[in-house]
């Protein structure tokens, strides 16, 4: 199951469940809190309609991965999840070792459903642990405690062969030593995969308001860089090196779903505020759906799909997206594929200059990849190569 090294970037399906029990103050994802119970049957029926619509656009594809993201998809009943997977199986051929991931909150309540998800066809969970100490969890607005999260991780380990969990670093006041200790604790419990995100202040979030009001202090770029270095060294030493900017895995245990994105493969996105990239006879198209959950329902029920954007991508746009995604991976990009997508070659002068600065390098097979020095300033590297 070596996902890496596969020449075909593959085809994946993303299913967005837009509800959460509460909104985390750092989160800018399409998530919504509802007081009344959500009508899962109605949503299921809309998901089925959207899947049928996308299936008609992608005949003959083999599904490499399905990903339930959110929101909090672990708020869905296992039966709903199972029905969605059945629908997918009905429309497409699914690869025998397809990765089927569900994001879950590591609470005791949700852990009780893990068995049901396993039975429904989920074979990998990704747990939003975020921190392993209670004060920080509280500050991040999480509803679970550290102990509860670790218990959920243990339950996940019993039910799923593959699981991952997320941690956030560069939290207010976080020191390098505290992060090291936390990271060791995480790796002790993580079998194969960890997502380690730097806390970023996103627009239109509670954290942004606090930050702008001077009530939230996050580490400055220098300190963030120190924490980044700690992360790279420690995970590599413990056998989970970064294969993407924020994702670490034992070799072979990379998330195949996210690799579809980063390798600029094809993916269909269903549900409110989901995104897709589909190859059609007219070229690559960018899809996105209505973000608001109930509005999405109405649109799907009326039109048979929830798409609000369905745009052809120009060569330049495809080249930009390919660089944005591909350079996030340690494996880097194939310059020939960039040329095929963008209709131009990468500016040799810029490449040479970045190589001279030690920020990118060429692999023995001719791939272009970002170096250890380059990753912390990747956005600038991408802007340089894309220009």
């Amino acid at each position, binding site marked *: 199951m070596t996902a890496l090294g596969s020449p075909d970037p593959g085809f994946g399906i*993303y299913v*967005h469940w837009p509800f959460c029990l509460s909104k985390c103050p750092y989160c800018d*994802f399409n998530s919504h809190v509802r007081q009344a119970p959500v009508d899962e049957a109605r949503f299921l029926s809309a998901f089925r309609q959207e899947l049928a619509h996308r299936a008609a656009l992608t005949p003959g594809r083999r599904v490499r991965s399905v990903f339930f*993201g959110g929101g909090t998809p672990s708020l869905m009943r296992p039966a709903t999840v199972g029905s969605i997977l059945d629908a997918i199986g009905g429309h497409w051929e699914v690869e025998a070792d397809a990765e089927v991931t569900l994001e879950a909150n590591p609470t005791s309540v949700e852990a009780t459903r893990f068995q049901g998800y396993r039975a429904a066809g989920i074979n990998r969970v990704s747990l939003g642990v975020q921190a392993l100490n209670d004060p920080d969890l509280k500050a991040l607005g999480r509803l679970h405690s550290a102990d509860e999260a670790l218990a959920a991780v243990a339950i996940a380990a019993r039910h799923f062969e593959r699981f991952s969990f997320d941690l956030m670093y560069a939290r207010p006041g976080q020191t390098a030593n505290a992060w090291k200790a936390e990271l060791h604790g995480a790796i002790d419990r993580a079998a194969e995969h960890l997502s380690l*995100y*730097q*806390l*970023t202040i996103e627009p239109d979030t509670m954290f942004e308001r606090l930050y702008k009001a001077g009530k939230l202090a996050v580490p400055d*770029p*220098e300190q*963030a*860089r120190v924490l*980044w270095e700690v992360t790279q060294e420690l995970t590599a030493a413990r056998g989970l090196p970064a294969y993407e*900017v*924020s994702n670490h895995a034992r070799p072979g245990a990379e998330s195949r779903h*996210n690799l579809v*994105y*980063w390798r600029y493969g094809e*993916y269909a*996105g269903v549900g409110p505020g*989901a*995104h*897709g*990239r589909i190859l059609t006879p007219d070229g690559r198209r*960018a899809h*996105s759906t209505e973000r608001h959950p109930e509005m999405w329902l109405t649109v799907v029920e009326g039109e048979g799909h929830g798409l609000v*954007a369905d745009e052809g991508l120009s060569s330049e*746009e495809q080249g*930009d*997206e390919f660089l*944005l*995604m591909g350079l*996030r991976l340690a494996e880097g990009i194939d310059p020939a594929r960039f040329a095929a997508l963008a209709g131009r070659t990468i500016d040799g002068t810029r490449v040479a*200059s970045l190589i001279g*600065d030690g*920020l990118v390098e060429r692999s023995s097979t001719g791939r272009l990849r970002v170096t250890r020095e380059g*990753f*912390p*300033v*990747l*956005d*600038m*590297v*991408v*802007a340089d190569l*894309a*220009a």
Partner: protein
Amino acid sequence: MSMDGCPGDAIEAGGTRAPLGKTPLPCYAPRMTAQKLDNIRNFSIVAHIDHGKSTLADRLIQHTGTVALRDMSEQMLDSMDIERERGITIKAQTVRLDYVAADGKSYVLNLMDTPGHVDFAYEVSRSLAACEGSLLVVDASQGVEAQTLANVYQALDAGHEIVPVLNKIDLPAAEPERIRQQIEDVIGLDASEAVEISAKTGLNIEGVLEAIVAKLPPPKGDAEAPLKALLVDSWYDAYLGVVVLVRIIDGSMKKGSRIQTMATGAHYEVDRIGVFKPKMTNVASLGPGEVGFITAQIKDVADTRVGDTITDERKPTAQALPGFKPAQPVVFCGLFPVDAADFDDLRAAMGRLRLNDASFSFEMESSAALGFGFRCGFLGLLHLEIVQERLEREFNLDLIATAPSVVYEIALRDGTAIDLHNPADMPDVMKIEEIREPWIQAKILTPDEYLGGILKLCQDRRGVQTDLSYVGSRAMLTYELPLNEVVFDFYDRLKSISKGYASFDYHITDYKAGDLVKMQVLVNAEPVDALSMLVHRDRAEMRGRAMVDKLKDLIPQHMFQIPIQAAIGGKIIARETIRALRKDVTAKCYGGDVSRKRKLLEKQKAGKKKMRQFGKVEIPQAAFIAALKMDA
């Protein structure tokens, strides 16, 4: 490409320079014969900005019935948008007013509206030479300003009779007695019979007209002598070609007259002759003392130099009028398109603009930092600003202007001398004997309370005080200053120190040798030519420090550390460092939503297009613009 507001384009055949031309009247040719000299008065108006010159002109036009009330617009004689907005006059304009005076006689009053700024001092002097008298308009509460002084002295030099007019007499703050006294004290004019008016309300406009008739002398001239006419101004009109504003001294001109310009030596046949009322109105001929326009199939305004003498081709006058001077740019700067792709448009726009403004010069220049552009010469800073603004506004171009530089005379060791317009062209210092820079005499009028700050400003700018006197509660300062210290944000500093109350005027006096050095700015050890400048050695460190300090905040962080240095020769006089960018990576790119990231990237790419690559450093254009506009 819009030429709105350009006087040339506003003219239509039979139309007028003023915006009234939008509804052109049929061109009629009344049997106007040459006027009797005794019934002509040619006058200009001398006033400080905002003291009411344009409003008074409007009232005179209205009161004499020259334009029907319904056709009146504000500031009739200022036809360019820039003129209206800034309250200044750039091109000379004229209007012929027919007035029946209290004595029962009909008079022809030619109002010559002159440019009111020192940048156009020569143009002003030629306009004044076309008149015998001036109205001195002074705000009855504000009093005499520095600019008023300079202009009124010029009018006196031109031999004018002066009629003082106290305007805004209706305002509660008006103090006519005090201002009358001030005019007598400061200018030495008898102001006892000053006409008190309110141009705004139209109060006593009749009094002004009567004073013009009674106090100003009629022109002199000989109708039988060979033609001698002053070329007062000229401009390009898309329909008519070059239109020439003339004042006849001797002889006469009519349609079909064969003429020649004495300085440029060109020959033409007059195909159209008329006066401004203010619409262009054809007349049969123009005789001594009259002011009007001609067209003569002239293609280029550069062939019609302000101050030139027009005479009869077959029977030329023996002596040209005195005082002809070719336009001499004193301030230079580089103008570059923000988007390199606009270079050809810029070239075309400059060509169009020069059709109307022969005093502005340009030649191609290339800068490592800014790409291809033009080195342009101007009559002064206001002229520079006006040209830049017109290029941006009328031709829709985004421009970067480099630091204004004066013309330096460089004496070389081999005995030759060169004029240096661009610091980038400075010869090797080893070859230089000395560098001479232009000096000015500046007059500053300021309320007493700001005097200290202004004295310090002038001292800091290497000024030498030559006079300090008081006009009521205001100080009048005379300073000798190097022009290169003035072109560099002196106005802005003066305005901020005096909260806008000080007025300022200058003229170039001479060139003096100075201890001038070329200061270079190095970004990441690469010299940035657009930022190099000639400065006095004593001022170099301060200027260098201010420059690197500013650039430090204007250049974005890069992936490496960037030293920014100011240097004279090999010696670093100031240094700052931009630290390397340490962390700039999107942590989460997930859920397949790459559209949002792509849009951010597109913005970044567009921004990069507006940057100039300097070695390995990309400098945003905003940085050049801001750095060059620095305040010391």
